[in-house]
């Protein structure tokens, strides 16, 4: 376990200057809580057929935290996804399969290959390091793990 943490730190340091690290130093996107309602007020969303965030998801309403004109900014796609689907992603990463894992792998810049899934599964406990590992850290940890092995690094964009 200690070895794992060390190599994670090392890998993080290596890629700290990369575009990925630069994008995840910030606070989360909060898209999930727009849907669910910050105070658990999902009733509104449900009642109105999902009009939550008319501004955030308006087609030409401009830029918000992670969206531009309603579509998620490229650099924030993996973060927004990990945040909104946190538990599904954790579960599928630990089991090494599933569409949430596949979706995350794609958005985090890697190919949806069995090799990537296997390595994600093997390291899932370290990627979701502790009980409340922030989604931004999950993305970084995942990238570090993938780039830490030449075989999976070759399947991921830099």
């Amino acid at each position, binding site marked *: 376990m200690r070895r794992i943490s060390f190599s994670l730190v090392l890998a993080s340091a290596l890629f700290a200057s990369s575009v990925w690290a630069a994008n995840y130093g910030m606070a989360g996107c909060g*898209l*999930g*809580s727009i*849907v*669910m*309602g910050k*105070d*658990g*007020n*999902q*009733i*509104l*969303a*449900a*009642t*109105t*057929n*999902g*009009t939550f*965030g*008319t*501004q*955030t*998801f*308006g*087609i*030409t*309403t*401009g*830029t*918000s935290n992670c*969206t*531009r*004109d*309603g*579509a*998620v900014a*490229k650099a924030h796609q993996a973060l927004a*996804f990990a*945040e*909104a*689907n*946190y*538990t599904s992603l*954790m*579960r599928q990463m*630990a*089991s090494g399969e599933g*569409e949430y894992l596949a*979706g995350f792998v*794609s*958005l985090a810049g890697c190919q*949806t290959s069995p090799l990537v899934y296997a390595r994600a599964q093997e390291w*899932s*406990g370290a990627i*979701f390091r502790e*009980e*409340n*590992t*922030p989604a931004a850290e999950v993305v970084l940890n995942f990238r570090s793990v993938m780039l830490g092995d030449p075989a999976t690094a070759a399947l991921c964009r830099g």
Partner: protein
Amino acid sequence: MMQLAACGTFLGVALLAGAARADYAAELIAQSRAARLHESDEWSALLHRIKPWLRPAQSEADGPGFFLGKDGKIDAAAELEATLRAFFQPPVVEVIPEVKPGDTENHGVQHPQCRFPARYAFLDRSLRFDPARLPQQPCPRFQDWRARVDPVSVSVVFAAAYVNHPASAFGHTFLRLDRRSAPDQPLLGYAVNFAADPTTSNGVLYALGGLTGQFRGYFSILPYYLKVKEYSDLESRDLWDYKLNLTQEQVDQMLRHIWELGTTWFDYWFADENCSYHILSLIEVAVSGVKLRERFPLWTVPIDTLRTLRDVPGLLGERKRRPSLDARMKARRSVLSGPEVRVAVSLAEDAEKARPALLTLPPRRQAATLDTALDLLQYHLGDVAGDEQKAAAAERKLVFMRARVREPSADPGLPPVTPPDVGHRSMLVVVGGGVQRNRPFGSFIWRAVLHDLISASEGQMSDHQLEMSRLELRVPTDTGQLSVREFRLLRLESLDPLDTWTPKIAWRVTTGFTRERLDAADLSYWELRGGPGLSLTPLGQLVYLMEEVEFDAGTGFVHKLRARLRPTLGLLLRPADLFHLRAEMAGRWDPTDSSRMRPLFSGEAAVNLGPRFQFRGQGMWSPDDWGWQAGLGLYF
């Protein structure tokens, strides 16, 4: 002097260029007139034009930002000419605003070519713009957005009807754009949604405002996974995908048009100009010449729009179901033994405490039990809405407990479900007759929408009833005088059986004009009645208890008003879709009426013969009255 001359030359060139542009604009306008482009299907679709009853043809868009011409909402030709002229405007520096809560009006700055890329594409294709005389603008903001959405195919997604939410009761449709870079990963696609921006979060006010066109409806675009979360995880509704067979150019044109809709709104009408109706207009833009909206002049039931799409040859492709979390969880639970179910429940409550009990099971059973417990935990995530990461602590423990059991997850094997478009149609007409206290009559029943529990369940909500506008006319054979027996404006009923994992109460609400015979007096009144209940499924059939409160207004009552309590015991037998029977025993208790509980027995049954036909009958008996009727039902 030299400078002045140079300036003069420059000015002259600019003036000449300006004149040349004006000439070219006039030339294009003349061409468009000659080709009668403003009457084309494409232009009509792009402007969302329709011919309302008794009014001139006009655009359904209500936001002024959608029109470049002075009278663009009405005048299609003027709008086309104004669009062509606007395309000649000098380049602008685009401004992208910052999203501000409550501000839907600020859309920043874009060149008209960039604001209306679908109009540009259509006019360019029709008139073959000369890029030397009409320079094409680069539109970085639109191009960047398009690159991120990057659609390769489009599906219509149907969220099953669900009476527990006022706005979603009839179901909901939206579009999903799948990405070129991940065509087989629907989760990564974008949902394009049309919905009201209500000024209230109160369900009743929302329904009233929606029915009377009080809200503005906007198109929005959002990651599809958020929609999955909303419908599949939080509301326990299946999602059905219907892929549209479109060419890449059709997909692209639809996307360009979606961008155009960002600056406008449509007055939202819950019954007619609703989510599903406006989704049809996007399909009309993609597939030129197909007329979809005009088939829904009065009201638009989401599921009927799918049937309309199915009727267009070759338009609908593959159909796919995404079962709700609720359905997946219950399928998993159904293969557990009683003790395993208990272990799953305690695992979801406290993983550490339940671990010893778990370890007594063989590995394969441990896996199945843990998978079910994880589903249960996920289901309850809805309760701690918003901050998933907090709830994730408990889940993390269970996830890694599961990961240590090196057994693959068994496929829960969901029971097959009939697709919603295959179910019976929404409008019902029944022609028949019967007897009321020895008086025979002929009867005619018309019900606008949607489903009752004695009709075939195939493709419908299984334990829910939703009826709107049900009118029953009778003609007694002796007098021959036509009269309204009943007009039920609304009847909602939810008989979800009791399940401790997904606690929901049964309930029903009815309102409308009705008649009753009481102590030899014939009363007619407006009724509002509703209340909670409990529903169980012993032997696979529904048995339910309801406790309703009733308020009536009519001339036959003291002070023209009456309040009653109405306890009911009911049974719903559904051995097969071919035959459904419902029987009820109710008491009617009016505290001002010598405190007597007046019994009422009633029943209804149907023989269902496919999506178009049924035979149905109903009967009632009370100490004051009795009657029965039967007839042939036709669905439209």
